[in-house]
Each structure stands twice: as C-alpha cells, then as structure tokens.
C-alpha cells in the first residue's frame, strides 16, 4: 500500500500551508487559468517574461495541499528559466508523478515522487504546470480533466 507520508512530505505540507508565491506577477506578460473539476478548484498563474527569461511566477486561487505546494514550488523553480526549459522541466516532472521509471528532477520537485502512488492526485500536482505552459504558449484557459 502506498504510504501517506510519502505523499505529504514536510516540504509539501509546509508549502501548502505557507505558500511563498501567492499573488499576481507584475508586470504580467502571460496569464493562464487552470481548472481541476475533480477538486472544484481553479488556479490563476501569472508570469513576467523578460527577454525570453521567466523573471517571476505567481499563482492565485484555492487548491488542495498537493496542487498548492506544486504551484508554489513550481513558481520558485521557474525563475530564471526560459519557456523551453520550463517545458522540459515539466516533462521530467510529469514522468516523476505519472510515469514508471526513474527520473532525475531538481530536488524541489522530487518531493512529489509520492504522487505516483496516488494516481487520482496526478492532476493536482500538474495543474499549475499545465496552466503555466499554456499561459506561456498562448494564455489560454486549461483544464486537467
């Protein structure tokens, strides 16, 4: 049986309870809205991109611990990256939470490895990522269902 403590690592619950990157990125160059009908949650992600570099990511809206922590850590890790790097970070992250083999991801993302044992929570972990990537592409609303 999957272990709850693997899902709710201290780092996760800490970022869930005290997110550091709530709010709205100013200047906001890209904005995306994500829905997780499963939770009934919505998330708005705002991004400042300058000269092809992500300078700031913020998110708003209510969500479960997994989606909040994931959004918060994502906001942290994306700063200084290019949109392309964001995409490949997400590819790794997605493999981590929904895939099967071993993956190498930044330590801050590795805390979500427990999600793999909880398939119903994959959407929570990836909602912010889907939203930010779609924002970077076109600013569209996305849904994980």
């Amino acid at each position: 049986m999957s272990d709850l403590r693997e899902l709710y690592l201290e780092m996760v619950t800490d970022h869930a309870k005290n997110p550091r990157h709530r709010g709205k990125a100013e200047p906001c160059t890209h904005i995306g809205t994500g829905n997780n009908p499963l939770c009934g949650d919505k998330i708005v992600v705002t991004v400042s991109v300058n000269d092809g570099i992500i300078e700031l990511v913020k998110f708003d809206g209510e969500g479960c611990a997994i989606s909040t922590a994931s959004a918060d850590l994502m906001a942290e890790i994306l700063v200084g990256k290019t949109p392309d790097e964001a995409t490949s970070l997400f590819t790794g992250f997605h493999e981590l939470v929904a895939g099967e083999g071993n993956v190498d991801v930044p330590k801050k993302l590795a805390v979500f490895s427990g999600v793999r044992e909880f398939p119903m929570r994959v959407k929570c972990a990836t909602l912010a990522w889907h939203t930010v990537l779609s924002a970077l592409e076109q600013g569209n609303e996305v849904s994980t269902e």
Partner: protein
Amino acid sequence: MTTASIVDNFPALRQSIGDKSLVYLDSAATTQKPQSVIDAVTRYYEHDNANIHRGVHTLSQRATQSYENARKNIASLLGANRPEEVIFVRGATEAINMIAQAWARPRLVEGDEILITEMEHHSNIVPWQIVCEQTGAILKVAPVLDDGSLDIEAYKSLLSEDTVLVSIAHVSNAIGTINPVQELCAFAKEAGATTVVDGAQACGHLQVNFQEIDCDFYAVSGHKMFGPTGIGCLLGKYEVLQEMEPWQGGGDMILSVSFEETTWNDVPFKFEAGTPNIAGAIGLGAAVQFIEGIGYETMVSHEQELLAYGRGVLENIEGVTLVGASEHNAGVLSFTVEGVHPHDVGTILDHAGVAIRTGNHCAEPLMRRFGLSATCRASLSVYNTTEDLDRLGLAVQEAIRILG
C-alpha cells in the same frame, strides 16, 4: 433482515483497501449492489439473453417478460398509476433531458419561466439552461436558507403565471435536504405550472409515491437505488406522456415507418427508441424486490439513526463544520475541515479505507451559496453501521493531524 444480515448482501463491501477493511460512504454517488441484483443481470445474460418485443422465440419471450415485469415492479414500488407511466432511460440525467427536449422545448416561448432551486444537481440545471437558450425562456432560481433548506416563501413568490415548469430535487445530493415536494408541487400547480421532481437521491432512501406527490414527471436513477448502472426511469402522468412528442427516433418506438409517414407507437414504447438496457432494467426490477424485502420504514429509521450518530461524531471533532444540516435530511453528511482541503481529506480517508466523495458534488451553485468550492461528503445507505461512522471520525482526525 437485521442490519448485519443486510450488509451480507453486498459483495463489494467485503474487501479491503490496502490493509483496512472498506467503509463505503459514497452511496449518493452510487449505491453498492446486492447479490440478488448482480445475479439477476448474470441470469439474464446466461439464460435469457435476447432482444425484446419483436421476437417470436422462447428467449426473446422470456427476456420481454422479465423486462416488462421490471416495469411493473417499479410502477408498484413508486406508486405509479400504471406500468405504462414508467419509461426506461439511462438515468435521472436522461430523464430530465427528455422532459426538457420533448416536453418543454416545443412548448416554451420567449419570456416563459422555468423555476428550479439553488440546491439542484447540474443534471437539473444544465438541461434547463440549454432549453432556455433554445427558446428564450428564463431560468429562475429559488434560494436556499442557511440550514440548507429551501426558502419556501421565496419559492412561492417566484411562481407566477409565466411559470411554465418547475423542477425540484426531492433530496439534495450535496447536503441531503429533503424537500416537501408534495407541497411545492401543489403551489406550482396552482400557478398553472407543469411539475418535475428529480428523485435521483430519493428512491433508494425514502418511500416515494408518484401519485401522492402528484407531480407530472419524476426522474429516477437506478444505480442510486441498488440497481445496475445505465438504467433509470422517467415517470410521467399517462395523459401528459400521451401528449408529449417522442424524443429519439428508432426501432420499437414506431408503429409503422414509411418515407411518407411514420406513426408512433403507444406510451411508453414511443419513448424507448432502440434496444434498451435490458439487463439493466431486469436488474433494477431485482433492486426493487430487494428494497421491498427490507421495507422503506426500516431503511428510513436506520438511516436517520446513522445520520444523527454521524453528526454527533463529526461535531465532536474540532475544526469540522457541517454544511447544510437541515431538520429534514436524508443520510448525507457534508462537511469541511478547517485548514485541510477536501481533496486531501478524501485521499487520507481513502488510505484509511473510508470512501467518501469530495468536490462540488455537481452542485456548484449550492457550493457558491455557502461560499465554498468543495466539501467532503459522507453519504449513507442501508448497509452502513455506526462503526463505519466511527471509522470516519478517526480518519478525519488523522487528516487533521497530518495537514491541519
């Protein structure tokens, strides 16, 4: 049957989730199925499997008889005037869509009003939004009070001569409120409106009597009353059904077809185009017999005891708030946990073997009414026990320990 022996009828309840025995508290989503229902489905496929109505051979004859017997059983359980008042559909959603499209759409004109309530399931909202969009009719919504009951005064004042149709949940799936549908339909009829009751959450729990409620249409969900998935009924008054145009066209719903002229079959066949869910209907017939074997009185008193017990368990946990716990309530415990998102509660409970539902329960407007985007919902059925609710309480405390 005692409660203990009732549980024995449900094979799916005899399992473990990880190392914990399963506590199933998601019956408002779908009830578990008694062995007798599963066996009726299997028996049909293993012995009588054939298409119905048009067949001259023995299997077809047996299948037709079982299918029509199921219709009779349902008519009798739910107090229809005659079996022909029972139309087999996929579920409550299809029943309501049929009313919206086959009854309402040809009758509505711009400015007509449809009245629903703030506590409706999306299945009793969206079909009306669609038909309003199609016809220019207006959707009116009667508000809900803080305790989760309907604001009846407001409801009455929203009724007018423009009200063509009223559609109300018998029991709210999200918070369990039991609406006084007989009374509400009487008011609606005084205003000249056609009445629809969404009985999806009622038939597996309360004694429903279609004639007494005296509504024009009543929507039934089979899978929420111990029956198979993919089957439900639309109950309609015979005269109303006779006047209603068919909705879907196809086999079995016609008397004769030519490219020049096609004549409809009689009620209820007119509304059952194509091969129906034969096994589903037969299984639902068996579910009716299961309910009759227990009796609604036993079911109601058992659920009411559990509801009171469960409220006690949850109210004793600090940080837990019940949402919409009205006086007349079916076995639904909707609650929030301070500082813990319902989705996380759900995961942690599942890990403890306790299956509940979390989210907006397809009742977003009601959630919004309470300023919430989601709740945790533990919903009860005849097979639940006080131990199940103790397990719920312990698991909620565990969630608070981990995340609260």
